[in-house]
């Protein structure tokens, strides 16, 4: 395998943009940073397959497209399936006609990945197609109006898990995408966060260098659905890591590595108080739920430390 083009400073990130402005994603949306860095980190030739959702809708309203590379949208739950077909086609065409196989990147939101798209993703991982599946997780079905998904964190208020008088938000915990992906026997999986762009960029480079399926899980701040001032997007993202709520780690060929070892976590309230979707959790009557969430975070952190072979 050739030298990986990983970086140490932002200046080493290539200048070329393959995602153009003029798209209609919300001001302060976390998705474009993922797209821009991904397209810079993955070498050409490449093609993007996109599930229905915020990114797809906002970037390709006919006749305007923000994409400078081939881009395919089929339906909501089948981005991994569509990508499987493209990959299989290029494998055949490469053998039979010498056509060069492009790198295939799949973008899906948490809706199109965790829930409706789960089957297709599982099938693609099991069959071992060569593709990079990246889930931009804004923690609800944002494009259709902020309904809860399997990725919505415990306690969050969404339109279908509202913080009501009797039930205070989502009761269920967040599905663990990376654990499930790894269980399929894939070689590389990692979490990404926009507040750590060098870490993020390098993980995408690593994923792209692998032949076979890889899964990346991106924390995507959503000012519209989480209710915070758009200018604080990166602040919110950083706090997610610093409270240990969103551990930054990677899995490569059987080994776990925690990229940001948060020794002294910030209090969870610092993160929650910035977002109105969590406002109810800071009320005294919901302290039991807040404590439950904090316990979940601690358990998850301990689990990851153990997997990474780190003694507390």
């Amino acid at each position, binding site marked *: 395998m050739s030298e990986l083009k990983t970086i140490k400073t932002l200046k080493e990130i290539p200048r070329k943009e393959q995602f153009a402005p003029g798209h209609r994603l919300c001001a302060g949306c976390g998705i474009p940073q993922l797209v821009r860095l991904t397209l810079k980190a993955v070498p050409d030739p490449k*093609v993007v397959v996109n599930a229905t959702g915020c990114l797809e809708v906002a970037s390709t309203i006919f006749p305007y497209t923000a994409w400078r590379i081939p881009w395919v949208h089929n*339906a909501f739950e089948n981005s991994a399936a569509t990508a499987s077909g493209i990959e299989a086609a290029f494998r*055949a065409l490469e053998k039979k006609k010498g056509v060069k196989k492009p790198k295939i990147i799949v973008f899906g939101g948490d809706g199109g990945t965790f829930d409706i798209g789960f089957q297709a993703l599982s*099938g693609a991982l099991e069959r071992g197609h060569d593709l990079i599946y990246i889930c931009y997780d804004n923690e609800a079905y944002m494009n259709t109006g902020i309904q809860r998904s399997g990725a919505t964190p415990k306690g969050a208020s969404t339109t279908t898990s509202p913080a009501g008088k009797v039930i205070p938000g989502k009761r269920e915990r967040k599905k663990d995408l990376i654990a499930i992906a790894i269980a399929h026997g894939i070689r590389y999986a990692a979490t990404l966060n926009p507040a750590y762009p060098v870490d993020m960029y390098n993980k995408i480079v690593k994923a792209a260098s692998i032949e076979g399926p890889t899964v990346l899980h991106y924390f995507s701040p959503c000012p519209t659905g989480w209710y915070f001032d758009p200018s604080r997007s990166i602040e919110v993202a950083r706090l997610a890591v610093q409270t240990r709520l969103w551990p930054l780690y990677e899995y490569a060929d059987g080994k776990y590595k925690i990229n940001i070892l948060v020794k002294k976590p910030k209090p969870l309230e610092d993160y929650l108080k910035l977002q109105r979707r969590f406002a109810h959790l800071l009320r005294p009557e919901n302290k039991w739920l807040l404590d439950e969430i904090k316990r979940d975070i601690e358990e998850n952190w301990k689990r990851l430390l153990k997997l990474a072979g780190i003694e507390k």
Partner: protein
Amino acid sequence: MPCKGYRNGERGMKVRGKRIGLNGDSAVAYAVKQTNVDVISAYPITPQTIIVERLAEYVNNGELEASFIPVESEHTALSAAVGASLAGARVFTATASQGLALMYEILWIAAGLRTTIVMALANRAFSPNINIHCSHDDLYATKDTGWIEFIAENVQEAYDLTLQAFRISEDKKVLFPSALNLDAFILTHSLEALYVLEDKDVNEFLPPKDPVNPIDPNNPITYGPLDLQDYYMEHKRLQAEHLKQSYPRILEIFKEYSEFTGREYKPVKTYGMEDAEVAIMILGSSAGTARYVARQLRKKGEKVGVISLTLYRPFPVEELRKVTKGLKALAVMDRAISFGSPGAQLFMDVSATLINEKEKPLLFNVIYGLGGRDLTPNNVKFVFEKAKEYAKEGEVKETQFWVGVRE
């Protein structure tokens, strides 16, 4: 059973190919192998499983160089096929019944994105209750989606139409996916004799796919954008016009294949229609039974005829209008039921076709054969009797009735 006069290749016709015995599924798989397909993306469902299994064998034995994707559901099967077709590959899939229903939303997308997928559709009944035998539910379910639909009446046609489907779908004047319908078990699993072409003949008729606008990083295209109110309707209008315009090209390719092989293919098949006063219109393998009965009645001097279709979508409107001129009564037989509607699907197609004709036959609808229920010669005789009765009285007493069911 098709009557003797219709068996292709006899009566001294020079027919291309060697004569072997295959069941419908195997014949389709064999044809697909000969097309040198690039990608096979299919999920097994009775009674299409033999197609998928044969193709897997061909690939794993090195007889066919293709990517075989063992997808985890039919929805994924067609989704992957769409991706593969956009990438410029020659693609095949197959399904039936529930599988077709599961991939339904993607049917529209496959047609709207102008893929050239060929799909074998083993016509099996929709649940409930679960039934693996022949109905035309899935054939009809596909009719509005923008796919071209062929119907095979016997194993020979299943083989020939598969080859023609690839050629037609990939033709630059067409560029729409096509479905090849064959009856569950009656054709899929029944061994019949057929002529198969030599590989070199298939290569001559069907050159490799020359894709239009394939995925190409040197020519970056956005496939499948979003349309707001200002563009959707025009895009659909364009698609409808293109499908209409592909009709003459389909006929040209039918003709080319007919001349190439000596086996005739045309959108509408007729028997006895030169002088028929009443007729039955029927699709699929049962057309043979209808002709068998018609032949017996005609021997007794009765002026009866049978119409069947090789091309169902786009619907052969002009041919049908021509062929039904002078008919007094036409029984349109449907192997499916459209609940709550004034008639089953073919009946509605035919009614819409003939509604503004100055001269049109009395039309009535007969439901038959659901879930693999046999259509017997006596059933057919009964339908001809009704047609004659209505023609004589000058009115249709029952616009829709069922045959072969225990009341």
